[in-house]
């Protein structure tokens, strides 16, 4: 019950958070001295044309009227029409979100599935050459620039070794659209060749994207484990002759992993932000490239719609992470 009321409270709290975000982004985008109308009007537009377009799109209205009109649209579930493409923002998001989420979820999964065991190994082999190597590796993972890593992986594994595709989600054929996630849609279509192709295309972008997350998870897990391994109850268990494997996986793991789980939400957000660069390099048809486009050209509806949606996703992910943490550490529920 406590956890349910916690979830409800957090969900309700997203409303003022999102409203604040909306106000901030709306104000920032409008106060920057630029006119997106000039871009859509074109290189040879006349002043009269620009004025007419400003009236058509309501940009001649006072800011608070423009904001109220936008809120009315949001209330109706309408995120507006993109100035650049003349397409509903929802349509743009529906097309571009699944590829981005497929990439981010895969990268997060790789980061967790590799980062946590590496962190455990580093903790168990503390001060050995394995520990030193892994620590250096994690520092490099955080420090290396995504664009450099992506280009290097493309050059080595795609261009020279011909082992992986250069970019995009699929080569040629795509599975029938159900979710927009190529892996899931391929499975639903029972097509092994397409599934293999989808996974094949995911490898390089996901590896590029996962590095900062993998490094963070490894470091957090290592320090969490080191802290737990020095606890009295662990020392007691060891002195009682309980096998080391049991101590690590039954007693230490659950307590050590709590701090790491709390990072999942943040890492997810970080990777979502990093998709911009990764999608550029691997011409991945996701949200990252679209976000850059709408921001560079001040496509107001596009900026607001994507920011709102990503804000909502980020908040929900963090609620889920908090719930998982509460499950792992019941003491957190007591404090609620």
């Amino acid at each position, binding site marked *: 019950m406590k956890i349910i009321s916690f979830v409800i409270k957090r969900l309700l709290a997203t409303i003022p958070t999102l409203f604040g975000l909306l106000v901030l982004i709306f104000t920032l985008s409008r106060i920057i001295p630029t006119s997106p109308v000039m871009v859509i009007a074109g290189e*040879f537009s006349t002043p009269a044309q620009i004025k007419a377009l400003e009236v058509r799109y309501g940009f001649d209205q006072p800011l608070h009227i423009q904001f109220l009109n936008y809120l009315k649209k949001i209330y109706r579930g309408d995120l507006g029409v993109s100035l650049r493409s003349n397409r509903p923002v929802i349509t743009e998001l529906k097309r571009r979100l699944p590829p981005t989420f497929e990439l981010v979820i895969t990268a997060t999964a790789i980061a967790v599935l590799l980062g946590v065991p590496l962190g455990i190994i580093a903790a168990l082999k503390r001060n050995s050459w394995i520990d030193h190597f892994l620590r250096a590796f994690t520092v490099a993972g955080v420090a290396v620039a995504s664009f450099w890593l992506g280009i290097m992986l493309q050059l080595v594994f795609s261009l020279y070794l011909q082992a992986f595709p250069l970019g995009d989600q699929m080569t040629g054929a795509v599975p029938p659209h159900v979710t927009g996630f190529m892996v899931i849609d391929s499975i639903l279509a029972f097509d092994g060749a397409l599934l293999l192709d989808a996974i094949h295309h995911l490898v390089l972008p996901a590896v590029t994207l996962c590095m900062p997350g993998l490094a963070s998870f490894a470091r957090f897990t290592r320090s969490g484990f080191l802290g737990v391994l020095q606890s009295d109850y662990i020392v007691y268990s060891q002195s009682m002759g309980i096998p080391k494997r049991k101590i690590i996986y039954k007693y230490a793991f659950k307590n050590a992993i709590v701090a790491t789980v709390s990072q999942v939400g943040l890492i997810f957000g970080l990777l979502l932000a990093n998709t911009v660069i990764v999608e550029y390099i691997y011409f991945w*048809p996701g949200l990252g490239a679209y976000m850059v486009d709408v921001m560079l050209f001040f496509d107001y509806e596009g900026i607001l719609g994507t920011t709102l949606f990503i804000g909502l996703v980020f908040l929900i992910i963090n609620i889920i992470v908090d719930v998982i943490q509460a499950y792992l550490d019941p003491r957190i529920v007591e404090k609620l």
Partner: protein
Amino acid sequence: MKGKETYLKGITRRTFIKGLGAGAALTMGSGIFPAISKSKLVGSVPPWKLVWSIPSPFQGLDPHTAGDDAPYSFKMNLYGQLYRYQDSPPKIVPWIAKGYDADPGGQQFTVYLKEGLKFHDGNEITAEDVRFSVERTIEMKKQVGGTLSPILAKDSVKVIDKYTCQFNLRRPSGYFIAALPMLAIVNSKLLRKHDKDGDYGATWLTDHEAGSGAYMLKKWDFAKGWVGVQWPDWPGGWSGNHLKEIEFNTIIEVSSRISSLLKGQSHALELFVPPDQIKRLKGNPNVNVIPNTSLSTFFIRLNYTRPPTSNIHYRKALNYAFPYDPYIEKVMHNNVVRSEGGPLPNKMWGRPEGLKIYKTDMEKAKKELAIAKKELPTEDFNREVTVKAIKGYGSTKLAALYLADVAGELGLKFKVVEEPWTVLSSAASKKDTTHDIWMHWRNAHIVDPVTWIGRLYTPEYQGTFSGSTYYDNPEVTPLLVKAGSIAAQDERKKLYEKACSLIVEDAADIWISNEKLNGVFTSDVHGWRYCDVAFGWDVYSMWRA
């Protein structure tokens, strides 16, 4: 505890099995993925298909409103125009039209259509489609509408009969026919069917086509690009060598685009691949680089109304100081040529014979600056001048830095700032916020001097980025206004030549270069016809061996 079994000294069974498993996985992995890469699953592009990768994203498929460069790909292949530019120097050839009559005043044009031409859905192309296309373009007020609205109104076109339409211009125009290639003729019946609240079918046309070009739309993904297939009923026919399928896709990152070409996934790239990459590609035996001097000009704009650049001698000093040759050699790797025509491209008519352009001469720069110093108030002369470069376009930043550097040698204070294009172009539309100095290109859309000097140096375009310097010379303006509004080409030529000379004498801007546009193709691509307009993206004549 039992002792552990060992196979070799110090290696347990568990360790041995783990090692065996890892080795097997490595062996399989090193074999599987290259096998997949080479297999049909990843695939190579069949020889009857060409993939053209460009950096511009596709916003939509509406030929009247879609902006940036990407729309030319479908305007030239999915759509037809009354007239079209071909080759270089660009010639206007009749396309959907077969000819026209013009009244001597240059305000009324009667255009005759070829009979029996059809759209992809089988509807015949008639004068009503032309009338609808003009009305739609003007009413949409975007892109093409902007170019045509000075001379055409919504109701400018009258249908005389099924294949004849009459254009009654808002004012006499010498460049009307030169502007017609910008107007794609759309299927009025189809768009009326998909009209939503009087939007001229705009919502529908964003993701569909209503054209009559050699290719028809097969697949469209606004996040990636489009694929076209041969239209079987194309009047030009398909005998000889042609591509059955064409694809234009977006790869924003230049290194990825080039890798795609080298890997054979793309067969053509955009015409403005950076000069350092051109140098690298020229050495590759599987790549053809075909250079062409274009009508695209690059120049630095000088504010005409705000001191110190409001002073003619100050502007001349900058024109003499700019290091043209080092910029062309070191920054652009000789991928551009020096502007010999002042504001006009080197290949453009309207450039007077023997036009004296500015060459780097620091002594002359100092002399001009000394005069400017006497003429300007001290605080204006010594004011720090901001030079704006376009963010994301490294060559503009380098041009700005070169200018700031030579200005420093002359004892002037220049500051370089980079801003995105939207911010720059918006600020340039108001006198208070427009820039001291900034820079941009002018591409060929209408092959007429009006594109380069008619729109940049008359007050009519102040309030847009074209008129950002607020240039207003009482000797020049009447020449340009008259040249834009008469039909007699000989007289127009003389007017433009005179205006060009005056503008250069006025040192209105710093005209640096004409771009070379390089066709970059895999070596199996043939038949490309470069055109200064539309980037040579008409692929009808192309094939792959």
